[in-house]
């Protein structure tokens, strides 16, 4: 069961990496060109999120009707609905970092596979942020 779970997770990673790569998310200058409204705006990445949303909007509704997931006992779906200060503050910081670098976590990790030093530094810094954030949450 565990190897099946790992295989599915690995395959999902491969598939997600391919999607991010083909769609241009692994080219920071393209992400910046989408976020940068000064000069020539490149709106193409909007269709990446739009496309992903359409697929997940439909597949989520179909899969939710299954009795249980394929490799888990039960579903793990967020239940919080409150708009909290950390949600706002965290999103704010995330946006600044994304706008500075053109990298968000998924594409940064995928780019690690190329051995690029920029990606390595980015992912190390992301992990540092995750570590400190998790520590802060556990103490607070």
């Amino acid at each position, binding site marked *: 069961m565990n190897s099946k779970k790992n295989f599915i997770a690995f395959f999902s990673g491969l598939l997600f990496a391919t999607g991010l790569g083909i769609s241009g998310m692994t080219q920071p200058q393209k992400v910046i060109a989408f976020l940068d409204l000064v000069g020539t705006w490149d709106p193409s990445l909007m269709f990446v999120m739009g496309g992903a949303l359409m697929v997940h909007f439909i597949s989520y509704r179909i899969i939710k009707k299954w009795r249980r997931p394929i490799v888990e006992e039960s579903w793990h779906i967020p239940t919080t609905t409150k708009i909290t200060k950390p949600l706002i503050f965290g999103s*704010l910081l995330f946006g600044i970092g994304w706008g500075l670098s053109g990298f968000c976590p998924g594409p940064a990790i995928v780019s690690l596979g190329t051995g690029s030093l920029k990606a390595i530094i980015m992912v190390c810094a992301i992990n540092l942020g995750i570590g400190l954030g998790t520590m802060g949450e556990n103490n607070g």
Partner: protein
Amino acid sequence: MSFVFGLISGGAVLSWFHPEIFTNTTEFSYLKLSIAGFLVGYGTVIAKGCTSGHGVCGLSRLSKRSLVAVLIFMSTGMLTASLIHFWGVKF
């Protein structure tokens, strides 16, 4: 962990066949990348989600929290990238 391994392997295989999809023409300093990375990582944990988590998964579940998160990080992302271009800041 297998998922992350899949992501990295995917990147490696893709870059073997199509190195051009990993073109990175940005000339950001390692300092800038470190600051940006830290903000991205810290922000993701605090807000409990990123472009994939809130943007794709959350929005398609019609989560109000995710809508708020996406609106905020899209705005601050656009504001940051635009201001940096506008002011001509390079670091």
